[in-house]
């Protein structure tokens, strides 16, 4: 029997090399060091210096950690690079199925008059602000010619139920015309004020999901969302309960928008969602579009105050989960998916290149086509930067291959944008050209001045620290991703 050689005999025979890494100081002596597929490692300053200086030897512990996280490789080895390449491909696989989401703005009319309305709703003039049947059919033709195997059609407004007959027509036509092998999903984004048995029967028969707005307890919700009768909250909660029993608990979801009046009331808002047995909550900041700008709602609180609101809410939600109730915060869940897995992300605002056009197309009531929902919000304010074309003349190819979209998408790669390219959080983040165009007049923007950037960094930092420092919280957070 030949002898065995000891461990030292298998030390690398060639020199080490540093793979592409980025780092960020989290605390005075704690750094997040990340490769470009998100294998983050938390290191002290001294450890970071040693990794960067390749001052590592097998058996010292740091060599092993850095190797496992694909931060270093031995010269001549191929596997570390192949793993990085394969995983990057996986993280960006959303590009293989462009434009899964198609938003139909079936009307801009609404019976609510929310001061934060981001779409600049109208209260009158059916002729002018409803989508015509002809426009809808053209939009459907574009949507059904998009490549993905599952096409999701979302009805937006205004209040889309004000044009319910058109929704019926679109769903029926889509079912009839869908190419064989393609699946269809439908969502109506509605305030539920006009929900009735007809609508519920229709949703049940056609597997239509409902998505609604719920800002919190009655006084807060009604203050944020005025309507004649001041009964928005009552109609929304009754609607949620009716939809849950008629369609199933998982067939309706709710979204909240944070206003200045919400800032001190995060627990109450979350309790309202729990009371209604909703399956989670999305703690959302206000976006800088539509009436939110015109009525100066957007400027009423800063990013810092929203973050305080978010963190307080997240910790409250974690406690709820630790007490045994599965109740995710959906924004954290999206980011955690980026942190903990290489699953390509469907969420259009957390992609690079950006989700404009490639993630979604928006068919406006007047036949104009936009690269994102926020893009049409800007257009209502007079800014047509993200308008790609018109259904009267365009088809899917001409929209998606338009010079305008190609230029906007091409400029949106966070991997090579100033600041983002060297940011340790980049693998977890995405590119939001509409936001930066709206706030800074430039689709890339100056990231140190960007509230989007500040918000992303702070939430990511919070999640990374929770994952590392608090095993109980980490177990909850991981549970949200693996479900």
């Amino acid at each position: 029997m030949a002898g065995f050689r000891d461990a030292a005999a298998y030390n690398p025979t060639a020199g080490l090399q540093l793979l592409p890494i980025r780092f960020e100081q989290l605390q005075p002596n704690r750094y997040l060091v990340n490769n470009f597929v998100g294998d983050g490692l938390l290191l002290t300053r001294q450890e970071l210096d040693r990794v960067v200086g390749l001052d590592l030897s097998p058996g010292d512990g740091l060599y092993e950690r850095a190797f496992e996280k694909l931060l270093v490789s031995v010269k001549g080895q191929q596997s570390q690079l192949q793993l990085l390449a394969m995983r990057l491909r996986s993280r960006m696989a959303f590009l293989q199925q462009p434009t899964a989401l198609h938003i139909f703005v079936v009307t801009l009319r609404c019976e609510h008059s929310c001061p934060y309305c981001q779409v600049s709703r109208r209260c009158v003039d059916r002729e002018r602000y409803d989508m015509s049947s002809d426009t809808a059919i053209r939009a459907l033709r574009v949507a059904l010619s998009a490549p993905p195997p599952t096409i999701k059609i979302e009805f937006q407004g205004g209040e889309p139920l004000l044009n319910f007959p058109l929704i019926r027509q679109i769903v029926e036509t889509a079912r009839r015309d869908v190419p064989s092998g393609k699946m269809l999903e439908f969502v109506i984004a509605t305030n539920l004020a006009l929900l009735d048995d007809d609508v519920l029967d229709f949703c049940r028969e056609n597997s239509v999901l409902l998505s609604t707005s719920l800002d919190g307890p009655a006084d807060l919700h009604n203050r944020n969302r005025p309507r004649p009768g001041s009964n928005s909250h009552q109609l929304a909660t009754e609607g949620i309960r009716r939809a849950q029993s008629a369609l199933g608990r998982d067939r309706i979801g709710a979204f909240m928008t944070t206003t200045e009046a919400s800032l001190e009331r995060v627990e109450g808002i979350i309790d309202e969602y729990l009371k209604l047995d909703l399956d989670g909550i999305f703690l959302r900041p206000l976006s800088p579009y539509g009436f939110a700008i015109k009525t100066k709602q957007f400027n009423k609180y800063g990013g810092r105050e929203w973050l305080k609101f978010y963190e307080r809410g997240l910790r409250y939600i974690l406690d709820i989960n630790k007490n045994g109730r599965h109740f995710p915060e959906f924004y954290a869940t999206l980011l955690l998916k980026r942190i903990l897995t290489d699953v390509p992300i469907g969420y259009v605002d957390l992609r690079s290149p950006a989700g404009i056009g490639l993630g979604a197309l928006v068919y406006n009531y007047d036949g104009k086509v936009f690269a994102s929902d926020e893009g049409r919000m800007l257009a209502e304010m007079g800014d047509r930067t993200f308008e790609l074309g018109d259904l009267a003349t365009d088809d899917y190819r001409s929209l998606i291959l338009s010079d305008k979209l190609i230029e906007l998408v091409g400029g949106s790669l966070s991997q090579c944008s100033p600041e983002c390219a060297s940011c340790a959080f980049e693998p977890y983040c995405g590119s939001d050209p509409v936001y930066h165009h709206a706030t800074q007049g430039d689709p890339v923007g100056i990231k140190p001045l960007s509230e989007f950037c500040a918000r992303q960094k702070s939430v990511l930092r919070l999640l990374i620290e929770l994952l590392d420092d608090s095993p109980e919280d980490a177990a909850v957070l991981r549970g949200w991703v693996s479900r």
Partner: protein
Amino acid sequence: MRPLPLSGTAKAITGTIEPGRRLLRLRAAETGAVDEADIALIRHDGDLAMARVRGFTKAVLFDDSSTTDVTDFALVAHIDPRFDYLADGDVMALDPGSGRFRVLYRRGSKNNTFLVTERCNHYCLMCSQPPRKVNDGWIVDEITACIDLIDPATQSIGFTGGEPLLEGRRFLSLLTKMRERLPETSVHVLTNGRAFADDTVATAWAEIHHPDLWAGIPIYAAVDHIHDYVVQAQGAFDETVLGILRLKDKGQRVEVRCVLHAITAPRLKETCEWFARNLPFVDHVALMGLENTGFALANQESLWIDPVDYADDLASGVQTLRAAGVNVSVYNLPLCVLDRSVWDVAVQSISDWKNAYLPVCEGCSVRDRCSGFFSTGRPRISRGIRPISDQ
């Protein structure tokens, strides 16, 4: 604890048969002889009369089971009653000259495995089947012939080594024959995966188009020098990872296997995290207790760790893999040394012929779903072994 004997020497061989190793399929005497390779199992005089009626020319007798005259048979092998487990449909290789024989296939077993070669380009510290540098190319020929005698209803067949892919094309031809002759049989090949770093090998493997072919490939750590040390081969980690990526790129089934011992267990958590992040698409991950035999005995000092001492890391690793949606199992470890959170993935993985339980297991309430122990080598007993009473 003693393993089932699978090879031995006949006490006597009689008959007129020509010398030379040959394959024989054991048949119950009442079945008709269908093939030149068939040999009748004789357990009593009635069998002998029946074998004559059925036209058998060869017979196996268990020692003194008959005193009758058998001179009319071309071949009679008298073998030890320890082998009387042999049954209809089993296959053995016998050299009439020396009387030496080996049981190659047991129809009633789920653990039929063929050793393809004793040669290997690894020299693993814990190898249960220490490699030898020998010219044993004849083994592939024998297995190829044996495939003709195997029951097509057999659920699964394993191939091991040595490193089976060192036989390259000849081994791939053998797998092609498996697909043609035994299309219903699942095939599990234990390989170090390095050959697949070469795209032509991975492509040839994929082009067999076998409906249920698995490559079971070991990764002992996510760190190059640790894996290379365990397998005693510089550069092995790099090639093995590339091999797995190539196989998966071609849609082939891959099981990743990690044997737990004192060199691999300290980074078990990190290794599982690495599996979850880098190889979540593999079809199965097996986290395996050590079989204390072969080289593992020689290297006991550096390999032994009581499984109780890595049980928490194992539970955490399993949890990580589950969360990533990876199909994971724990092999070869009795339930009493495992955290209860992994009991549902702890399987009875030890092959029937070398599986045993301890006297202390008598009063255990979960014995019948426990892996038990290897009866091979010199089993080391964890301090955590105890009967479970509250199930």
